[in-house]
């Protein structure tokens, strides 16, 4: 099911912020279609920075991000056609209903002619309650907003999906449903790059898992390799070890 060419690719990616913080230190990673890549790491490890670089929100200090082979920095508009994005803690437009939010982002994502039924389908897919579809989003709970955020990414139907801690704030049932959705998207051949703190879920859903520390990818394991290793132990060992930059 996986494609040969990576859909998401970070090549020698570094980011030093204006204040001198080296947030990302020569990162290399690839995600193919039909593959879920989980990025683990403590707060401040550089996960969000990585995703922001893929979306051209910030310029890289060195290296390049490719989306479907397109250099994100050189042709951001073209690259962004092929990637959808779920951010952590998105509030969305509170004055709009879920469907109005979805409609707006679908149009921005290049899907101008969707029907109400199509919007409803996507919202059902992330198991948002039916009665919330036409409610103003300002009445939503955090979990409901997160689900709507995921449906916004789904409706774009892009080859690559970037998720920044999408499960933070979801209750266990919602997290379980989210995992199913993710498996479906993977089944559709999407390349999924997800940052998360949830080691257990990363192990379950990730085809590959990377651990970041101080901007470096310090470990990468495939699903097969993880069958014989204890991810939790590896993770904690890495977190406990000496700082990289002494």
């Amino acid at each position, binding site marked *: 099911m996986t494609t040969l060419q990576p859909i998401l690719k970070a090549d020698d990616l570094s980011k030093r912020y204006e204040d001198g913080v080296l947030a990302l230190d020569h990162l290399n990673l690839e995600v193919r279609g039909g593959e879920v890549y989980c990025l683990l790491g403590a707060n401040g490890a550089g996960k969000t920075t990585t995703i*922001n670089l893929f979306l051209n929100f*910030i310029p890289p200090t060195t290296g390049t991000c490719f989306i479907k082979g397109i250099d994100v920095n050189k042709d951001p508009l073209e690259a*962004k056609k092929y990637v959808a994005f779920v951010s952590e803690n998105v*509030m969305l*437009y509170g004055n709009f209903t879920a469907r109005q939010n979805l409609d707006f982002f679908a149009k921005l994502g290049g899907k101008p002619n969707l029907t109400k039924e199509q919007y409803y389908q996507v919202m059902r897919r992330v198991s948002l309650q039916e009665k919330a579809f036409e409610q103003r989003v300002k009445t939503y709970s955090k979990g409901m907003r997160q689900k709507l955020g995921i449906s*916004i990414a789904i409706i774009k139907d892009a080859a690559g999906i970037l998720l920044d801690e999408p499960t933070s704030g979801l209750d266990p049932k919602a997290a379980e449903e989210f995992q199913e959705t993710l498996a479906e998207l993977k089944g559709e051949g999407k390349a999924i790059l997800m940052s998360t703190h949830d080691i257990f879920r990363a192990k379950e859903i990730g085809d590959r898992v990377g651990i970041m520390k101080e901007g470096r990818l310090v470990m990468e394991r495939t699903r097969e390799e993880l069958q014989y290793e204890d991810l939790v132990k590896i993770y904690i060992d890495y977190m406990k070890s000496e700082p990289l930059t002494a």
Partner: protein
Amino acid sequence: MFKTIFKKELLDQILSPKFLIVSLLCLVLVPASLLLNSAGYDDAFREYDAARKEAGNSTEIFREPSALSAFGIGLENVMPKSVVFSKYQMEARGAQVQSEVLSNINGKIDFVVIVSFLLGLIAVLYAGTMACEEKEIGTLKLVLANPVKRSTVIGAKFAGGFSVLLIPFALSTLIALLLLLGQGFPIFASGNAARIAAVIVLSVLYLAAMFSLGLFISTRTHKTSLALLAGFFAWIFLTFIIPKTGEPLAGLIRRIPSEDAMKANRAQVRSQIEKEKGKALAPLMEKYLHVDGRGKWDWDAYTKARGPVAQNYEERIDQTLQKFDAAYEQKKSDRRNLSLNIARISPASAFTQAALNFCDTGVADLENFSRSLQNHGILLSRAVFKYSFQDTFTSDDGKTNRSMGGASSPEGKIDYPKFRYQFPAFEETLRAAAPDLVLLIFFNLIFFAAAYVSFGGYDVR
């Protein structure tokens, strides 16, 4: 893409509670202020009309109040209601309405004030949150994760947000105009319609500039609370501080003698020539107007004989005083222009100056009225004042002092020149307002360009 974001902005703003509040505010204030001020104009006009008829032939003239002061009171109450001329001088009357203490302390509310202060503030605050609020709620990242240019986003935000601001403005103005029309206000009389249209166009330009300024502030901040505070300070600076520092600053740069000092100077210039005149007339006084009982007191002979002698001096007094007054006026006008130019750094001031000119209550009208007075003074002096005289003789040792005044009898009836204040023509006002119009367009370009560039580099994380 532009249309999608434009429509979203439109809907989002209209659904927000602030739209309701602004609409209510406009719908109450704009019609109410216009109706009240037009009623004030009606009263002023009646007063003017009655006073003018009552005065008949006299040396007092009356200034017709400006109908468009209903839109902007401006200098309406600063300019005199009437002016009494006498030989060599004039005295303004009724410039300040002293019964209206509060209005003089706080300033009256009129259309121009509502736009420059209230709507100006609303424009800055409205736009001030447009970028950073989307950052706060995380939607800016979601939007920019799509193939859409930042320039499209900021352009659509301006177009959408500003359209929403224009809705209450346009609606309340329209309602107010209809109400005025119903009250019999001369909207379509004597070029008023074009002037009202000009005020509205200027308002839109000014509000657009303030809106762009708000957008710029929004792209320089990452928190709505900070943006609102910054917008508020920018507004205070532009609508209060700069316009209010113009005059004192100009006063420091261009020092001119006070009105009192000027009057004393003027009196001295005049008395110098009067003295010379008195000396020249002394032999005639001696001849016809004896003080010590010798000969006969022949007033008629004196008034006849003094004419040719005095004429030269009186013309000199006239000319010298005219020159003196013109020089002082010029100084005042230079200083005024300097202060106005300093104030023009602020879009609010540029807007107010231009809009008031179109309301016939601006600086252009002050100057126009002052010119009219000058011209009328010359006419009066030719037709009326030349018949009256005051001759004063003071001996060099100051011991003898004789003064006599009277009127030489004119041939036939005195023909009092008529005074009818002519408001500046539309083209003239347009010329006067052109710099401010250009400035407002310039502010629009600068502020929007700043917002555009700043948003291009806006940190969306």
